[in-house]
């Protein structure tokens, strides 16, 4: 299909879009997670171990997603009692704990990482996952659960008074997000072929956060745009050599000032 390099870029872009969507879902219920890297790590490691044991790729991916979702349930429960900023730091802590866990977990190589993963990911897997994930997120918007998530986000007192079970909705949003991140991790592991705990540290979660907030967290297209900009921009800045990251960082500041609600602004009261 595309030339090798660009196909690789496209695959990583697709995986990053999945990660962005994995944060978008809990964010639309008002849950800000800076720990999606942790869920990604769980999906990556479990799926790699499973394929090495001969399990089919499809099931390995799903298993990664489900284990991540299960852990998401555990993390989500304390998250029910705390809000906003607190939750950000809690999830940040969760991500770091996952990293330290894998740094010490010998069966998956501890700090030396896990290599020799089969190159099972190709553009079809990634494209398929992206289309499905995006489809789910898009349709969620006009569903009972999706409306409930937005209601919980905007006014949880009123939402609860209208019959919405806050616990159920928040946990659902959080677990769906964890699931997507786990899937992305599984796809990532089988494309990068070598994983180590530092690939899933805070920097990863911070970038995922950027994908969504930069693009605009109020609209499913936001994460798409944000991911494209954050991932592809450095490619176009190649000419700047060593100054790439400096320019990139400065651009983040500039965009934050210029478009505080994200590149795709927040629709207030939808129009159809």
């Amino acid at each position, binding site marked *: 299909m595309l030339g090798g390099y660009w196909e690789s870029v496209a695959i990583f872009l697709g995986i990053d879009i999945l990660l962005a969507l994995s944060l978008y879902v809990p964010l639309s219920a008002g849950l800000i997670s800076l720990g999606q890297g942790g869920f990604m790590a769980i999906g990556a490691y479990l799926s790699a171990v499973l394929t090495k044991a001969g399990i089919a790729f499809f099931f390995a991916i799903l298993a990664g997603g489900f284990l991540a979702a299960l852990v998401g349930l555990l993390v989500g429960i304390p998250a029910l009692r705390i809000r906003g900023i607190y939750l950000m730091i809690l999830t940040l802590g969760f991500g770091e704990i996952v990293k330290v866990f894998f740094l010490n977990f010998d069966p998956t190589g501890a700090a030396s990482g896990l290599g020799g993963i089969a190159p099972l990911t190709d553009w079809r897997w990634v494209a398929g996952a992206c289309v499905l994930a995006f*489809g*789910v997120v898009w*349709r*969620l918007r*006009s*569903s*009972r*659960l999706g*409306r*409930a998530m*937005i*209601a919980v*986000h*905007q*006014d949880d*007192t*009123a*939402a*609860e*008074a*209208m*019959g*919405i*079970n*806050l616990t159920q909705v928040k946990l*659902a949003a959080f677990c*769906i997000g964890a699931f997507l991140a786990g899937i992305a991790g599984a796809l990532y592991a089988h494309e990068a072929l070598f994983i180590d705990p530092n690939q899933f540290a805070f920097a990863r979660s911070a970038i995922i956060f950027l994908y969504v907030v930069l693009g605009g967290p*109020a609209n499913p297209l936001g994460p798409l745009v944000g991911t494209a900009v954050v991932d592809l921009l450095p490619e176009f800045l190649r000419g700047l050599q060593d100054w790439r990251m400096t320019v990139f960082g400065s651009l983040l500041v500039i965009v934050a000032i210029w478009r505080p609600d994200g590149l795709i602004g*927040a*629709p*207030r*009261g*939808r*129009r*159809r």
Partner: protein
Amino acid sequence: MSALLELGSVSRHFGGYQALRDVSFVVTEAHIHALIGPNGAGKTTLFNIISGALRPSSGRLQFLGRDYGGRRPHAILAMGIARNFQQVRLFPGLSVIENVMVGCHARMPDHSWRDLFSFQLFSAPAERQARDRAQEMLRFVGLEGHGNDGPGELTLVDQRRLEIARALASQPRLLLLDEPAAGMNPAEVAQISQLIRLIQRNGITILLVEHHMRLVMDVASRITVLSAGSVLAEGTADEIQRNADVVSAYLGTDHDAAVGPLA
């Protein structure tokens, strides 16, 4: 007529402050029952206890004969008690009709997981039904045609109507209204009054907290007067107006609508 809501010796304190003391009354089905009293009497606290936003310190709350004290608000809604908010609490990110559809949440089947994996093939009929019902509620309150607007674009009266429509969408047996006429001019108050009577004619019982005496006297078939956390008096509109204790409880407060002997 049966007792829909029954309060038995409900009390509530906040630290050392006794906000409510042994409040008991009954709301009878198909009536419009009003809760009035001077500022600081504890009406809001009582209202929040009935709707589940607060727990009573002691006392009994019964709906349709069953105790429900301590339940979460969403479970109370499922039982059949819906409310509005004095400071209108709509969802700005949802359109007007979507706001009402949130009211349908508790009455829609929970197909969340099937939805996710089937792109809502399963729930499409339920979704259509909810939308139809929401449209019907908008028509009922007089907001037909505003379905796709943003809630922020509505006037205050219309926002209040929207909140009521949202509450009605949950098919309540008892509707709790917290100062639905607050901040309105006399013409608007009359509109709300009309809407309240229309709701009652459709078989829904109403418990109303209000300061606009004219509205209260117009619609309420039974009035409970709260003062300093206790029930001061209870009776029909006529009885309350002639009650000397009630009149003196109100004198000395700068009430826009309390005129002499609450005429």
